[in-house]
């Protein structure tokens, strides 16, 4: 059963230095508040996983929380580069960042395999690409047809963190709109935290709603606005201007550091 707790408490209890942690969210419900809490608590040596690391991962990396990144597309969507990610990869600042790079299809298969308690996922993928040499991909032959297919190791992070619209008081969670890989992340992770826009008396069944039962979640923490500048379908829109502004903020180490101080370190958890 999920414990209803605070964000600060949940991050303190669940995330340990050196852990493999996924703050997931595919273009929607990105857990910014939880990422900020990890920066505030100065988590270190994290191996971060996410299909589409964007601004919150730029912040975690620039703040020195990460030693390794498993990902498939790391950019500021519609804007350009993630300058903190690039600085870490290109110049080792504030520390070098090891990359474990996949395709979206490979990452999606790795999440599904993790949720299904399989050691690997299978896909028709990677063939002919440079990722086939760089990524942690191996090849298996179909035992029936002999066809060669790609295999990726399952994602089984220590901690999976996602954001959702609602939880009920028993800790059951519902999200809707674009649902991404959120359910898979919770199921694939040894420990899980779901931050939510609000806690309600009863989850009302909705078209497209995905319900994650309380008993597969470790902690649920209210974090209203916890996806901003990403969005929460039915609650608030994406702050597209912020993504554009982020480019200038992240381009310079000092501007970035000041931004983190002003907006994360000296801010209080929701």
């Amino acid at each position: 059963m999920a414990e209803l707790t605070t964000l600060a408490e949940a991050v303190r209890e669940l995330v340990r230095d050196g852990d493999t942690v996924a703050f997931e969210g595919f273009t929607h419900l990105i857990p910014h508040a939880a990422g900020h809490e990890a920066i505030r608590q100065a988590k270190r040596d994290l191996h971060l996983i996410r299909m589409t690391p964007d601004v919150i991962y730029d912040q975690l990396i620039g703040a020195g929380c990460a030693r390794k990144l498993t990902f498939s597309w790391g950019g500021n969507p519609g804007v350009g580069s993630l300058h903190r990610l690039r600085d870490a990869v290109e110049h080792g600042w504030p520390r070098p960042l090891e990359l474990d790079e996949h395709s979206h299809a490979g990452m999606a298969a790795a999440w599904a395999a993790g949720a299904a308690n399989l050691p690997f996922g299978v896909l028709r993928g990677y063939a002919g690409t440079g990722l086939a040499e760089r990524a942690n991909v191996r090849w298996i032959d179909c035992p029936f047809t002999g066809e060669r297919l790609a295999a990726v190791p399952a994602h089984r992070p220590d901690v999976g963190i996602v954001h959702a619209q609602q939880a009920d008081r028993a800790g059951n969670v519902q999200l809707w709109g674009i649902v991404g890989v959120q359910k898979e992340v919770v199921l694939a992770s040894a420990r899980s935290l779901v931050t939510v826009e609000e806690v309600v008396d009863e989850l009302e069944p909705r078209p497209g709603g995905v319900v994650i039962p309380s008993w597969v979640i470790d902690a649920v923490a209210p974090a209203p606005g916890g996806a901003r500048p990403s969005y929460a379908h039915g609650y608030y829109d994406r702050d597209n201007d912020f993504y554009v502004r982020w480019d200038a903020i992240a381009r310079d180490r000092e501007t970035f550091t000041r931004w983190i101080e002003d907006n994360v370190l000296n801010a209080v958890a929701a």
Partner: protein
Amino acid sequence: MTGYTPDEMMAVEAARRIGDGAVCFVGIGLPSVAANLARATHAPGCTLIYESGTIGAKPYRLPLSIGDGELAETADAVVSVPEMFAYWLQGGRIDVGFLGAAQIDRRGNLNSTVIGDYGTPKVRLPGAGGAPEIATCVRDVFVMLRQSPRAFVEQIDFVSSVGDNVRVVVTDLGILEPREGELTLTRLHPGANVEDARAATGWELRVAGDLGETEPPTADELAALRELQAR
């Protein structure tokens, strides 16, 4: 109609190539403009799929991200990301997939991963994302890319996706299509000439014997495009 931008020419020409009823895997930027223009004009029956999981999205405004809420609200179905890649992309359900890149070679191989050496990159690009499997699982790959010697190169620094299914490259100067396995200039946009195209290509660009000229955007096409972008 005389005035239009190179981007408008690219969007219009890509849109024309989307058949009514085609199922299109769409990214943000010009591909999304092109696909939505096709839907608004000659191909109302085409299906737009965004890799965020929205099948049959019918956005009124052009989305700013592949995860815009309007895509989910207007979709026939929203599926999880693992299902999108396994059942729909790998399942062979997509007719047309759009790709962009930082570099392309004459075989249509694309690089969106890194400029320079992988381990010590000059520029770390965002990465391949969906491209490796889009490139092999859809029937027809459409590439949209402004032509320049930095982008159209003899040797790409990293193969993010392979060119086997690239059917057309729509540039700001013209159209390249594979002829005997090599991307060949088959059409020029109005106002461009072969020398422009050769100068903007890092390899010895082949020119088709039957080189044609692209229809300029019609008044209706431009009006529809601008109306779409003004929403």
